[in-house]
């Protein structure tokens, strides 16, 4: 423990957080059965804390004090878990120089740093799911804003008359207990990750979502053979049912980039 006058954040964390209802519901209740709709498919309805592609926030409450980050004492033995390596697509050799150049100039080029829509799959798992038999709606509470994707489950194919978009056109189907969402018709103005991972408008993304109790697992594969050396299977992401509802997103107003002293901007894992 620290010997400074700072509050002892770690003490009583679990009890207090539980009392305030701030832990994911799944973490509070442990294992629970996967609910299903009357049709028999898994019920994905709910608000899901997915860590925003950054870190799961585990605030520590102690009296009226709140610690949002850096709350725990440094490990005495240096036994902290090593961060996972970056999860990045592999490019065809003739495009690697372009990726490297964009990466080196991320401050100048990354759309997300300018509050643009992250695109798919960079936006990650949905923050809220509204589900009916014929369609599923994904809602997002992202730093760039609120976004939605409407995923019809009864479509015979993708429409041919829609304008290409940042989030593309999605259609879904059930593969046993897995929701499979295929998205195409992108405008090519987003990145797959934060390190210059550009894509073409012909990007195709397949997401697979499963629910186990109060835990959601999101998997995605990006196909863009014109530039990628192979399909990129993203590291799966986990989301937990939460009682904290998403809200109207405040405006995204970029004020930082002019103050950056180098071009190595992003330190987020997404």
């Amino acid at each position, binding site marked *: 423990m620290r010997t400074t006058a*700072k*509050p002892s*954040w770690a003490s009583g964390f679990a009890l207090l957080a539980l009392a*305030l209802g*701030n832990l994911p519901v799944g973490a509070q209740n442990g294992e629970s059965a996967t609910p299903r709709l009357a049709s028999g498919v898994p019920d994905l309805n709910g608000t899901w*804390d997915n860590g*925003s592609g*950054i*870190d799961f*926030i585990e*605030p520590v409450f102690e*009296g*009226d*004090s*709140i*610690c*949002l*980050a*850096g*709350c725990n004492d*440094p490990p005495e033995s240096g036994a*902290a878990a090593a961060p996972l390596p970056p999860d990045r697509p592999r490019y065809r050799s003739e495009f690697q120089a372009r990726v490297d150049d964009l990466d080196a100039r991320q*401050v100048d080029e990354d759309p*997300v*740093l300018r*509050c643009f829509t992250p695109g798919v799959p960079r936006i990650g798992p949905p923050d809220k799911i509204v589900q009916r038999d014929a369609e599923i709606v994904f809602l997002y*509470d992202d*730093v*760039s*804003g609120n976004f939605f994707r409407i995923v019809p489950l009864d479509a015979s194919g993708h429409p041919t008359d829609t304008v290409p978009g940042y989030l593309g056109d999605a259609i879904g189907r059930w593969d046993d207990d897995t929701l499979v969402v295929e998205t195409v018709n992108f405008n090519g103005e987003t990145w797959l990750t934060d390190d210059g991972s550009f894509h073409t408008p012909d990007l195709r993304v397949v997401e697979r979502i499963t629910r186990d109790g109060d835990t959601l697992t999101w998997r995605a594969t990006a196909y863009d053979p014109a530039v990628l050396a192979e399909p990129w299977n993203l590291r799966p992401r986990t989301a937990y049912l939460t009682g*904290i509802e998403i*809200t109207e*997103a*405040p*405006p*995204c*107003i*970029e*004020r*930082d*980039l002019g*103050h*950056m*002293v*180098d071009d*190595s*901007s*992003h*330190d*987020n*894992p997404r």
Partner: protein
Amino acid sequence: MTCKAAFMLAIVAVPPPAIAHHSVTGQYDPEQRIALSGVIRKVDWINPHTYLHLEVTNDDGSTTNWRLESAPTAMLRKARITPDMLMGGGAVVTVDVILARDGTEHLAWLYRIDYPGGHSYQLSAER
């Protein structure tokens, strides 16, 4: 440093979790860490980062307005922190911050706020 309330603090190097939209250390210098006392006059509840406006009274009675950058709104919300809570009711608070690398005056990244009642909000890991 023109503000009488500012003083240098010891630096503790702790690997941070990434909670920022961009690299904090690309914009702010952990080795220029100071404390300020003042009144929070305004909170910009915006993304990708919130900003607090701290009014600091100088030795000659004039005031300086500091812009203190902090976490995204969704993260504060998940910690049940609201703009009103950050404001602290107009009381004089003490903040622990690191300064902008590019020399922009009165711009800093916010680690922590201590309120006169004894409670605090730690909003960022040390960088």
